[in-house]
């Protein structure tokens, strides 16, 4: 580890903290339904076409049904496009139909904001599929996350009402005013920094040695912008942001990392503002950044330490563990990116997590096990964290001698039930499906490595799917009907088995009256609360995965320390 390395990390964290407020303020304007300049007529036009009255509040059931219908329609449409891409336009390389299981997996993947890719983008998908199917879902799945976060915030902020907002309005406003303009700006920035944006298929180049090389091209910059901003993570190229065209410079790399966290960090401020105390939002962001910093420190330490087995061979390893990392980015940026992308459920990668040291790969896994709540996927991070806030308040809140309250709302049986339901869906999907894959031939067949590392490959895949992350560990061959099917199931559970309880909680909270805060109220700001919340997240969310982590990266690390490869 180096001082420069740490300064780089601290600069990044400071910038995220600085972005939170302005981004949060803009998000609050969207949340609050305030009229926006310029695009107002477009927004109203959409409502007119859809026959939607944006001022009409939906009950949580109405909101959930609208959201589910919209997303299922997205799955169907995506599936159709992928299956029919051979006859659709913008297919310069003439790719044929995508296989049914892969199309199904990909459709679920992009609708759930996971962007797990069982395929290589540049060798499987036409430009039409990339732009009109995948990129569109990149916007809409991010919009869905923001909408759910808005609905839950309303649950806390409103009182004595049934309505938690209008899904169509939230969706339209988040996409039209936030995701689209920011993506356009970022696209232009990326183009200026050297990312290709073209409809050409590829160019053939002659290398210095005189060999022929085909360089894949396409509308990369536009997909890159929303891939990061919407924490989607599905790359244009197979190797994602490790590809020099998808991430040409250190600057694009830094911008990409910032844009992954930007909206998630901003939403914490929006929450605080909406419930009338911005310190509540800062406390949540503080908890997120605390967990984040610890994660970065451990990963950085593990990677910078290098591989003792290689050192034993007499090979200098002063750079740290560089296997699977791009020399352009080095240890610091690669580890920071790995933690950012797994904390935020983005899933874009600039290095192969498979090649990380066991402890280094443990952190990204652990981040996802916690349930994408460290900044998290857009929207998902906030509502994931708020679930734990409810749990922490309920467990510890009694200790001050009052029935538990959070930001003025009493937490009772119904909220506890729904929060536990949402939280339990993650271990069910990750551990259940991993167990299934690790005892069946079809599951075992996909591994690249044997032993604990192979186990980690399987665990990582289902973790990435259920946490809606989408990053690949590498190694595992996942484009089989077995994995395509089960991973799609994991992604679906990880997304909608959380969203539905969250909306139900929003409905239940909105109907409650508000208890003003006083000296007797449980303090949910300040260091004590941050420490408590962190402890609950680690004990309830993290400990469950300890056995699996011990048998994967843990066993790997233990073997490494003993001086052999398991």
């Amino acid at each position: 580890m180096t001082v420069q390395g740490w300064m780089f990390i601290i600069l990044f964290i400071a910038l995220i903290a600085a972005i939170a407020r302005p981004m949060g303020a803009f998000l609050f304007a969207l949340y609050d339904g305030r009229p926006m300049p310029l695009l107002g007529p477009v927004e109203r036009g959409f409502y007119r076409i859809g026959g939607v009255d944006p001022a009409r509040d939906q009950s949580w059931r109405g909101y959930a049904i609208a959201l589910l219908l919209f997303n299922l329609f997205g799955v169907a449409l995506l599936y159709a496009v992928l299956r029919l891409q051979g006859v659709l336009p913008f297919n310069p390389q003439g790719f044929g139909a995508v296989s049914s299981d892969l199309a199904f997996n990909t459709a679920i993947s992009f609708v759930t904001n996971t962007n797990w890719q069982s395929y290589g983008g540049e060798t499987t998908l036409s430009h039409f599929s990339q732009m009109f199917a995948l990129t569109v879902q990149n916007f809409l799945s991010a919009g869905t996350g923001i909408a759910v976060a808005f609905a839950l915030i309303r649950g806390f902020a409103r009182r004595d009402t049934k309505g938690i907002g209008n899904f169509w309005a939230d969706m339209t406003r988040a996409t039209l005013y936030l995701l689209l303009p920011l993506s356009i700006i970022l696209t232009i920035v990326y183009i200026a920094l050297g990312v290709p944006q073209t409809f050409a298929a590829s160019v053939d180049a002659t290398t210095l040695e005189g060999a022929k090389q085909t360089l894949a091209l396409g509308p990369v910059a536009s997909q890159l912008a929303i891939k990061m901003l919407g924490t989607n993570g599905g790359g244009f190229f197979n190797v994602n942001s490790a590809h020099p065209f998808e991430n040409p410079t250190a600057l694009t790399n830094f911008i990409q990392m910032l844009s992954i966290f930007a909206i998630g960090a901003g939403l914490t401020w929006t929450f605080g503002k909406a419930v009338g105390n911005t310190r509540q939002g800062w406390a949540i962001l503080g908890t997120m950044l605390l967990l984040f910093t610890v994660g970065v420190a451990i990963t950085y330490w593990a990677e910078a330490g290098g591989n003792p087995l290689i050192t034993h061979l007499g090979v200098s390893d002063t750079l740290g563990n560089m296997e699977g990392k791009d020399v352009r980015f080095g240890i610091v940026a690669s580890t920071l990116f790995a933690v950012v992308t797994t904390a935020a459920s983005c899933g874009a990668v600039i290095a192969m997590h498979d090649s990380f040291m066991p402890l280094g790969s443990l952190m990204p896994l652990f981040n996802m096990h916690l349930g994408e709540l460290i900044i998290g996927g857009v929207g998902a991070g906030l509502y994931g964290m708020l679930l734990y806030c409810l749990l922490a308040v309920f467990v510890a809140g009694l200790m001050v001698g009052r029935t538990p309250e959070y930001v003025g709302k009493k937490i009772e049986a119904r909220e506890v039930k729904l929060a536990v339901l949402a939280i339990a869906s993650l271990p069910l999907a990750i551990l259940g499906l991993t167990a299934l894959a690790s005892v069946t031939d079809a599951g075992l067949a996909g591994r690249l490595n044997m032993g604990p590392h192979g186990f980690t490959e399987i665990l990582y895949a289902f973790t990435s799917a259920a946490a809606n992350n989408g990053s690949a560990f590498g190694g595992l061959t996942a484009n089989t009907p077995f994995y395509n099917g089960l991973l799609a199931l994991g992604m679906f559970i990880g997304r909608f088995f959380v969203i539905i309880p969250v909306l139900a909680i929003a409905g239940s909270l909105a109907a409650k009256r508000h208890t003003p805060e006083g000296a007797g109220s449980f303090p949910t700001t300040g260091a004590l609360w941050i420490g408590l919340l962190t402890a609950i997240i680690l004990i309830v969310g993290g400990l469950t995965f300890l056995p699996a982590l011990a048998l994967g990266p843990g066993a790997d690390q233990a073997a490494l320390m003993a001086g052999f490869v398991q």
Partner: protein
Amino acid sequence: MAQQAQSLFSRDLVIAAIKGSCVKLDPRTLVRNPVMFTTAVVATLSTALWFGTIAGSEPGKGLFQGQLVLWLWLTVLFGNFAEALAEGRGKAQAASLRATKAELMAKRMLGVGETYEIIPAGQLSVEEIVLVETGDLIPADGEVVWGVASVNEAAITGESAPVIREAGGDRSAVTAGTRVISDSIKVKITAGPGQGFLDRMIALVEGASRQKTPNEIALTILLVGLTIIFLIAVGTLPAFAHYAGGMIAVPVLVALFVTLIPTTISALLSAIGIAGMDRLVRFNVLAKSGRAVEAAGDVDTLLLDKTGTITIGDRQATAFITLPGISERELIEAARLASVADETPEGRSIVALAGEGAPAPAEAITIPFTAQTRVSGVDIGIRQLRKGAVDAVLRLLGDRANKDAVAALRRCTEDIARSGGTPLAVADGDRLLGAVHLKDVIKAGVRERFAELRRMGIRTVMITGDNQLTAAAIAAEAGVDDFLAEATPEQKLDLIRKEQAGGKLVAMCGDGTNDAPALAQSDVGVAMNTGTQAAREAGNMVDLDNDPTKLIEIVGLGKQLLMTRGSLTTFSIANDVAKYFAILPAIFVVLYPGLGVLNVMGLSSPDSAILSAIIFNALIIPALVPLALKGVKYRPASAGALLSRNLSIYGLGGLVAPFVGIKIIDMAVSGLGLA
């Protein structure tokens, strides 16, 4: 009865509780506690497997598995024991109450003249009229419809001073089991057999009619949720072990599962609830539901009656005011003599204010205060010295009083009333001498109490019939946050509604029928036991001591109940960290020897580690029973201070204690060669 504190672990109680914990193994009882029920199910499963082991291929493993089975069952039994002990303490109180009740007989009026028949109280029905004479016990709850009597309610309240019960007005309710010590009254029965106040109290302290409170239900849901999450975590382990080319024995999985699920708090949960109610009963407050006790912890606003709560109920004499033509000496001397034999606080304060003087002559005859005359004094020869409420004295004098003196007295007593005081008139025979100014005196220490409440985030509002000016003066002196002067029942109700509309929970106490709507509207309504039946029905708690100051303690008891529950939940969940680090390495070291590094406690062998964890998990339950029954220490403080205190004791303690405990047990287990 309530004052007799029982030792927590008296021998009889413990023996009864041990019996009770076996009886509670009945699945129909166990199923009410899902986590303990789950534990019992896996204990049954393990027992069956154990029989298979000792009969089958691996008898060598029999000792180890047998011990696991034993400790699994002990875990369940310890949980039952905690609940049985809590109930046992309640039952002991109920038994003494029941003894009073068993011998009650009633004189039922036959409706013809004054004739009655004597029947057992159990045969009475509602609306019947009974006669209760001097020395009789009141047979059932009811309302006085005729007569005035003084009643000793020590059986209920533990307070030996008799109270007046009379027909009409706010002091007409009488309670079964209390004794009439003078005069006779006719009582209309208001509660049928088994429905009376005493019956409800018995059922309540016995825990028979206990229902889970909303907060308890929510907590149970959380505990079940955690159990399901751990079921997933443990249930997937065999597959993972299979991948690693090994297998994990079922008893070991069971041990891991049982130690991880929140058995500690689940075992103690109902004991905590019962003990919380019990503390209230010992404090002579009867809550009609556990919900009310929880609500007490949440109270934001306390409505406090001025008299008795903020000021000393009996006012103190502060000045003598003479009528024209009367010397101050004469007035003081008359007031002093009229009060020498008066043992009430007012009387004594008059004597104290009057200062030294000649004692009452030997021939003096004391005229005591009666409910009818409301005047007291002394007869010395032909002199009749009297003091009492202005109206009462004037009524006594009747037409004999001098008209000018009456007018002068009226004027000066109005002045006294205007300044917030209470006037007493003093007369010598037909002659009015003047008035004594009685003034409210703020109770010692209330100011500090209110400051304490403020730090806890509780607002205090003083309710008084006094005028604005007086009320403001007293409010400022006592340090309450707000006051409601010249309060009518309607205003009281409005105030409660207004507070509640702002999301606040309100507690109040009251005794009169006109308090009933406000008592019913408030979140915690404490009715005085001397109050009317209507008031007692409307409130959700009844204070047997009739002490409105208790409202503050009731809030404390409510908070203590919730704090105990929260602290033990936190402790229980925090324990899991150490248990993981005890059992996981023991399981995994077989699969990957390198994972021995997770054995941070340095436990001697895998079997010993597993056994130690399950033993710790079982033993922690009886170890925490005293805390569950007594409640965690409660000191009024802000929420932040309470949180940091309890979090450092029960949160950090919960993290560290099992590391130490399991290590010690491991040393014992391996030392004894048990594993």
